[in-house]
């Protein structure tokens, strides 16, 4: 028997002697083998480390002296103080791990008592084996299951955004958390595929999240990140772990440095980071595709706006200041990103509804007659049919359709009131009226000052306009950036 086998058996015996099943066994045996004491010996009849000190354990030596060979059967003998002893072998598989020894017996036990003790012993051993298996499962499977659950949670957190900046920041934060590191960086390959560009750098000490100029791009093959990107192989060292972000091709690297408890990174953590990187790469690819789609949609809308502008300048589209104002109000109201994107699209094509309105009405100076106003209301919905087939504009259509509604229900085309009007349309109505008041229009002739226009908007709060949108507009108007919005190209 080599040293490791000896150690393994010794550990087994120590655990067995302390287990819950042996406590029950001791109780049972104290009834069957009256006044006895139970001790544990190793295969060579030496007391195990955890056994209590007892002079009678010297009998182990005596036993060895008697040259008993490790027996697979029980034995009855007398110890050095001439008392009866009963020993049972502890058998695991084919080998004897040790012995349970009953000492201080008054007389030789009967065969029935020995058999009962043997049954109890076998039961205790089986129970202990079950305990051991459960412990092993707890020690090996549970951490893996927890890690798997962590990865699943990370997947949920990452797949809930398609905004690239938000996503990259989230990946960095989660990496820092999972790796228990002080530093994490995410770098993506540039278009030339020769350099890694830092996209998020987060340090626990400084909490840097925005990529500052101090974080320079890295050439492929240079530094740890560059080498990982070139070889596409993860690197694990004492203080750092770096993993490539690979889909079909490499798109970047993710690295973590310096554990918070100053311990080295291990293989288990490398495995976790590799799995996290797999999740991250899918999320990054999705966000990249979404960005591309957004760009294409934006370009299509701009083209459409340019076509409409070519037909009649400033009739169907509004100025840049209008678009910026709409977005500023939406940001102030903390609308969701999706609402803001739809509002942006709508603000680029707000008056497509005027497309089939005759020019003599559109460009008429002065107040419209009720008949002309009826034509506008009717043609507004008709005109919108030219853009309703554009799939990416569908979520924006209610905003374009209803931005002439009034909060009190007196607007058009549907006479919606209050919260029946889409939130984007309520925002656009405020910006639309403000822009109209501060601009010269053919049908209006004169414009009013910015402060007068703001007062006018405030005056109509709750009647023409949504009070919440007006409050947000006033807050925007008080900001220094408002001057820049007003200065934007007409």
């Amino acid at each position: 028997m080599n040293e490791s086998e000896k150690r393994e058996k010794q550990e087994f015996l120590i655990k067995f002697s302390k287990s819950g099943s042996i406590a029950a066994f001791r109780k049972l045996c104290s009834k069957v083998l009256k006044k006895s004491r139970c001790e544990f010996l190793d295969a060579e009849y030496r007391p195990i480390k955890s056994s209590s000190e007892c002079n009678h354990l010297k009998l182990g030596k005596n036993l060895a002296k008697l040259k008993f060979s490790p027996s697979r059967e029980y034995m009855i003998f007398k110890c050095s103080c001439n008392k009866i002893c009963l020993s049972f072998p502890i058998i695991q598989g084919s080998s004897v791990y040790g012995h349970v020894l009953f000492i201080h017996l008054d007389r030789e036990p009967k065969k029935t008592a020995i058999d009962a003790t043997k049954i109890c012993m076998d039961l205790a051993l089986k129970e202990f084996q079950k305990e051991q298996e459960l412990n092993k499962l707890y020690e090996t499977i549970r951490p893996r299951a927890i890690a798997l659950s962590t990865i699943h949670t990370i997947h949920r957190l990452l797949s809930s955004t398609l905004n690239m900046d938000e996503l990259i920041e989230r990946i960095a934060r989660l990496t820092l958390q999972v790796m228990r590191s002080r530093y994490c960086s995410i770098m993506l390959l540039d278009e030339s595929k020769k350099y890694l560009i830092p996209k998020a750098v987060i340090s626990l000490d400084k909490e840097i999240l925005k990529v500052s100029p101090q974080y320079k791009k890295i050439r492929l093959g240079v530094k740890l990140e560059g080498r990982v990107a070139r070889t596409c192989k993860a690197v694990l060292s004492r203080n750092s772990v770096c993993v490539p972000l690979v889909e079909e091709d490499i798109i970047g690297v993710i690295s973590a440095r310096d554990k918070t408890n100053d311990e080295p990174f291990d293989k288990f953590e490398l495995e976790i980071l590799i799995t996290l990187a797999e999740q991250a790469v899918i999320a990054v690819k999705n966000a990249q595709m979404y960005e591309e789609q957004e760009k294409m949609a934006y370009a299509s809308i701009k083209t459409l706006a340019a076509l409409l502008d070519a037909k009649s300048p400033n009739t169907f589209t509004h100025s840049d200041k209008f678009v910026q104002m709409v977005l500023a109000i939406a940001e102030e109201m903390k609308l969701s990103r999706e609402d803001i994107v739809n509002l942006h699209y709508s603000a680029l094509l707000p008056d497509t509804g005027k497309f089939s309105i005759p020019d003599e009405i559109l460009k008429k100076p002065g107040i419209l007659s009720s008949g002309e106003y009826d034509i506008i209301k009717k043609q507004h919905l008709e005109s919108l049919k030219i853009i309703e087939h554009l799939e990416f504009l569908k979520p924006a259509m209610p905003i374009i359709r209803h931005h002439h509604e009034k909060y009190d229900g007196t607007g058009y085309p549907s006479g919606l009131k209050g919260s029946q009007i889409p939130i984007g349309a309520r925002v656009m109505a405020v910006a639309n009226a403000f822009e109209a008041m501060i601009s010269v229009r053919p049908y209006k002739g004169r414009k009013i000052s910015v402060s007068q226009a703001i007062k006018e908007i405030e005056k109509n709060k709750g009647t023409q306009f949504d009070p919440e949108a007006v409050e947000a507009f006033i807050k925007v108007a008080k900001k220094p950036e408002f001057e820049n919005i007003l200065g934007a190209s007409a």
Partner: protein
Amino acid sequence: MKKIKNLFKNEASRKILLFFNENPNCIDTAKGISLWIGWDINIIQKALNQLVKEGIITSHQTASTAAYAYTNNKEIVKKIEKWIKNMV
């Protein structure tokens, strides 16, 4: 932050701290954590909210998911470790 002693008085908080001390890399939802600990989700959620307020648990929120992880603050982690050792 409340004294760690006070946090350990609450059994749910104590269970959560023991769990994260044993699994510091874990990020999970309240439901997941309650499953690992074997406690009612409502009690665990309440204790998690309190521990987030105390800065011992970090919350990662999105519109649809709230996940919880152990603090990265070395000093707090050390204090908790010390408490757990003394408990044993």
